[in-house]
């Protein structure tokens, strides 16, 4: 093993370990601030940089809040329930963080300083996308571990919910990605991103749009974001699997959750939103990194927006939504995409437009039909008045 290789591996991976936790800190601030504004509050606005006590003058919109939170978390008491499985209670947050961090390597995120290096990036692997899904699935284990090791009934319920939910939603997640893989003919993340150069983003095709919507919804469930945050449903099961976590272990869970959010948004960007493609990339290659992260943040902004708006689903409705709505729709999407792709090989111009519109109609009608089928009696009602 040459020293060069070690150096290159470090140069390729360490930035991921630095940039994303930093972004995590920023995102927590962003989320708190955005949610506050959605709810007509002010949000964190006192803690400045560096942690000024009398905020006000140097508060910088409360940007110091994540730092203060981090310090608070570090110094909080680490409480472990008496009956808990101490080993697993300790391992679970770490295990939650590792896969989330690991899958970041599979994103085609090329930093300017890595160009001249050996090709050590994991996204050049032949099966990068499938690796991504495989390793994301490990998160489930960590959550189960946390839920089980806490010896708390709410935690256990949360763990059970998490397993059921994440396994179910992995299927539409993967199936919607299949469409893109089919079109590109490769599981290599870099190739997929490159195939979408010149604004040929998959989200601009009907099947790509449908797949993107399904992917986005399923990814919300996969990372336990509202409206699918059942494993940590506050109003029902306190905090779900991390009810019994405090201090730094809780912070690790928190970090893992946000990193997973970045990772899955990054995959969505890779698959549907053209990776690092964007205006000005041809002239300045490093802009691709900026675009990539900007797109991730656009998706995260939508997630925050959804979180500020929606209540959560019920367990059976959640499972029904995955199995009775998303799964058939994503399978149909694969079929539609296959046929349409072959049909438009010969067609051009108007015919192509007709095919696209037809695809959209088929997909929308199916979705509508499935919705009607799943919830036939759910609709607004009329009320009577007595004088």
């Amino acid at each position: 093993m040459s020293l060069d290789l070690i150096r290159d591996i470090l140069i390729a991976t360490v930035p991921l370990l630095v940039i994303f936790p930093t972004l995590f800190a920023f995102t927590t601030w962003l989320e708190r601030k955005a949610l506050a504004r959605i709810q007509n509050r002010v949000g964190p606005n006192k803690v400045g940089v560096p942690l000024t006590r009398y905020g006000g003058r140097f508060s910088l919109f409360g940007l110091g809040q994540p730092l203060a939170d981090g310090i608070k978390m570090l110094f909080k008491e680490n409480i472990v329930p008496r009956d808990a499985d101490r080993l697993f209670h300790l391992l679970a947050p770490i295990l939650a963080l590792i896969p989330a961090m690991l899958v970041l390597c599979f994103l085609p995120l090329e930093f300017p300083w890595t160009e001249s290096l050996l090709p050590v990036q994991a996204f050049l692997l032949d099966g990068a996308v499938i690796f991504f899904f495989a390793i994301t699935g490990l998160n489930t284990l960590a959550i189960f571990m946390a839920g089980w090791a806490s010896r708390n009934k709410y935690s256990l319920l949360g763990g059970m919910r998490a397993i059921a939910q994440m396994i179910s939603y992995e299927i539409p997640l993967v199936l919607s990605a299949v469409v893109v893989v089919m079109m590109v003919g490769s599981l290599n993340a870099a190739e997929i991103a490159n195939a979408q150069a010149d604004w040929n983003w998959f989200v601009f095709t009907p099947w790509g749009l449908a797949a993107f919507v399904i992917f986005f919804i399923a990814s919300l469930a996969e990372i336990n974001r509202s409206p699918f945050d059942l494993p940590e449903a506050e109003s029902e099961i306190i905090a779900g699997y991390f009810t019994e976590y405090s201090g730094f272990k809780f912070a690790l869970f928190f970090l893992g959750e946000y990193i997973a959010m970045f990772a899955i948004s990054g995959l969505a960007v890779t698959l549907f939103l053209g990776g690092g493609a964007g205006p000005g990339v041809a002239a300045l290659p490093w802009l691709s990194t900026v675009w990539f992260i900007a797109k991730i943040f656009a998706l995260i902004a939508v997630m925050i927006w959804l979180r500020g708006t929606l209540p959560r689903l019920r367990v059976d409705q959640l499972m029904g939504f995955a199995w009775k709505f998303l799964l058939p729709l994503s399978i149909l999407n694969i079929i539609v995409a296959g046929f349409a792709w072959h049909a438009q090989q010969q067609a051009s111009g108007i015919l192509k437009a007709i095919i696209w519109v037809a695809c959209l109609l088929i997909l929308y009608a199916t979705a509508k039909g499935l919705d009607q089928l799943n919830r036939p009696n759910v609709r607004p009602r009329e009320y009577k008045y007595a004088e």
Partner: protein
Amino acid sequence: MSLLGGGIFKGMAVTLRNFVGSYFYKDRLTTNDYSWRPSDKLPQRAGEYPKEEGEQLRDTTTVTNYSRNFPMLLHDGSEPMDTIRCVACQICERECPPQCIYIEKSTEKKENAGGKPQFFPATFDIDVSVCMSCQICVEVCPFDAIVMNSQFELSTPDRFGGLLLRRDDLLKSNGYYHKIHPEEATARDKRIAEEKAAKEAKKKAAAEAAKKMAEEKAKAEAEANEGTPDMEENTE
């Protein structure tokens, strides 16, 4: 046939409007900055917060002119004990629903706000950890001696002693009362003046009527009535 997910989009439009609106409309961002900040020194007793009377009222967003918190005793002049209105009649102590007032009557009389020798409270304690700000003591007081303060910064490191307000903590001037509750104070002063005028007119009328009958006897009667005029009405 409604749009699939249409309700969700409508809801998102509402939240987006609120998000944007919170930057532009005061209506949508009702949070007020609580600008009073603790100084380095912690207060040792309740009531040591704001240092000057009425200081916290600079921040009109947290306290309005109508809000009430805990009772205070009124005095009219600059020297509190010389112009205290309270005559230690103990009606408020009896009527207080959570029984948080403790009064001990003085043994000797002393000249007070009215300019006549009266009893005064040797002890007047209010346990604000028990007081529930119901304002019943204010209503039952026949002398307008106790009114509601709006001071709310009462936290103290001493859980027991610190929350027992003594007579001297409770004494506030009528000017302060005017500052915190201008409308109410003006109305009250007006009513007191009217009552006083009415009483004086009555006294005058009675005196004049009595003059015709027998001067000396009437005078003595009028003085006896003045001593404890309202007490008898209310005590039962």
